[in-house]
């Protein structure tokens, strides 16, 4: 069965209530077109996980698509906070399980390796741990190290149903390159039941087979490959395009209130039929060309 599909079909493979792990970090490589299509298709009651919360997760939370967020805190860097996530936590409409970057990464790592649990030094002595014990006592525990008799905090593996990963390039089977730092994406994909890869470019398998050391995601984990240039807009994709400051600022301003955010969604999600219309709306080819990364700098 060919894996290369449109965005709509890939998104339609996600069930209400699924646990999805997202590739974004703050304002980099966020699965934005994917998030917009999830909202358009009305998929709901999602659990979302991410080492550090990013714009993709924030938009899904703002649209009411998320019941539960497992993450290590996050922001939109200097542009602002995750206003939708924070508001949903404050009003209690979102179950947020807050960790640190490494503790989510270790939970993915344990999931990727089939470990039953993973010991960690982080979290001890903090209120993060105190809250986790209250909220989800079943995901943290302690174990005595049989070698030293020291008691260690251990975390349960985190195994999303689907990893959704924005990459620079992949082949038709989903063998993928990720340029730049990968943050949690390697462990996320390998922990998850399957992966949806959203690529700026689908390249010939021969190119992948020429430098197989660069493959971060093996195609055998991938169910859908979506070729979607500028799929991360307004966030950046290293070596492809820069973030779009003006559009991120617009998003941040909308995050201040329910009505403003609804208007934002009406304009950029519900008001456009698909990614192509979205790209036209934010300025079309001229705007996109102005964001193109410098080949030396990578941004």
């Amino acid at each position, binding site marked *: 069965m060919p894996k290369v599909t449109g965005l709509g079909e890939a998104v339609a493979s996600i069930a209400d209530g699924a646990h999805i792990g997202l590739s974004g*970090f*703050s*304002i*980099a490589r966020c699965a934005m077109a994917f998030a917009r299509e999830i909202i358009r298709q009305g998929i709901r009651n999602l659990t979302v996980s991410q*080492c*550090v919360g*990013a714009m993709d997760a924030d938009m899904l939370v703002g649209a009411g698509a998320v019941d539960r967020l497992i*993450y*290590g*805190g*996050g*922001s939109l*860097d*200097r*542009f602002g*906070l*995750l206003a939708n*996530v*924070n508001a949903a*936590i*404050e009003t209690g409409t979102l179950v947020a399980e*807050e*960790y*640190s*970057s*490494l503790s989510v*990464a*270790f939970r993915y*790592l344990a999931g990727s390796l089939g470990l039953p649990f993973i010991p*960690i*030094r*982080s*979290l*001890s*002595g*903090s*209120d*993060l741990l105190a809250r986790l014990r209250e909220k989800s006592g079943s995901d943290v525990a302690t174990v005595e190290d049989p070698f030293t008799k*020291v*008691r*260690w*905090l251990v975390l349960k593996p985190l195994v999303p149903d689907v990893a959704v990963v924005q990459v620079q390039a992949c082949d038709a089977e989903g063998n993928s390159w990720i*340029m*730049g*730092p*990968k*943050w*949690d*994406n*390697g*462990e996320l994909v390998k922990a998850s039941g399957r992966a949806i890869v959203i690529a700026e470019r689908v390249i010939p398998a021969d190119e992948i087979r020429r430098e197989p050391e660069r493959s971060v995601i093996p195609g055998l984990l991938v169910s859908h490959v979506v070729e979607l240039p500028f799929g991360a807009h307004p*966030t*950046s994709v*290293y070596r492809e395009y*820069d*973030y779009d400051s003006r559009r991120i600022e617009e998003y941040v301003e909308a995050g201040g209130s329910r009505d403003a955010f609804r208007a934002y969604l009406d304009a950029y999600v519900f008001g456009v039929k698909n990614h192509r219309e979205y790209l036209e709306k934010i300025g079309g080819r001229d705007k996109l060309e102005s964001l193109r*990364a410098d080949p030396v*700098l*990578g*941004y």
Partner: protein
Amino acid sequence: MEYTPSELMAVSGARELGDGQVVAVGVGLPMVASLLAKRTHAPDMAIVFEIGVIDSEPVHTGVGLADPRVWYRATVLSSFVDILGTLLHRGRVDVGFLGGLEVDRYGNLNTTLIGDPKGEFRHMVGSGGANDIASCAKKTVYIMRHEPRKLRESVSFITSPGYVGGGKAREEAGLAGGPSCVITDKAIFGFHPESKRMSIRSIHPGNTLEDVIETMGFKPEIPDTVPFTEAPSPEQLRLIREEIDPGRIYVG
């Protein structure tokens, strides 16, 4: 030579770093301080960012760790597990360099829940790698603004543990290391070796002891003699102004 409080903070931060060390930092003043140390007394220091960046050489200022500007010319681009796992959790990070919204007298950092003027709590950025760094680095250095609402008797939420309740509480939580100093725009604080309460180490030139104490949310330990913080050298200022933060994004 004239200098701003931020410049003195960056220079004071740089002085906490030694050659050959591995330093985990975020963007902002900690990065300016680290780059300054590397260009002066610590050329073989390694600067690592949690998302998987080692020893980058930015030529443009970024808006945060997610900005490719701060990854430019790195020697390694890898992952959280590589940096926070195989370096930090493995015990190879000598200094963790953190900013914070609030710190208490035991060096506990809060970046999660901040009280607003109405007495309600607002959710902020949470941990990111800060809890990991505070838990696992051999020592941590904090840089933050000197304000009563930032230097507090106690914090409403411990995101990243310092000495927890003081004394042996950090050890009892299973953690080594701990904060070695807090650098503000008025003073530098250490921690009392036994009580682990914050203690004045030096005051920045131009400030008085009274002013330092009155503008914090609690009364720190005060040793018998309190020296002034050493001023930046002209070369340090030149590096900050011309090479590291020419746009004065971080060092205002």
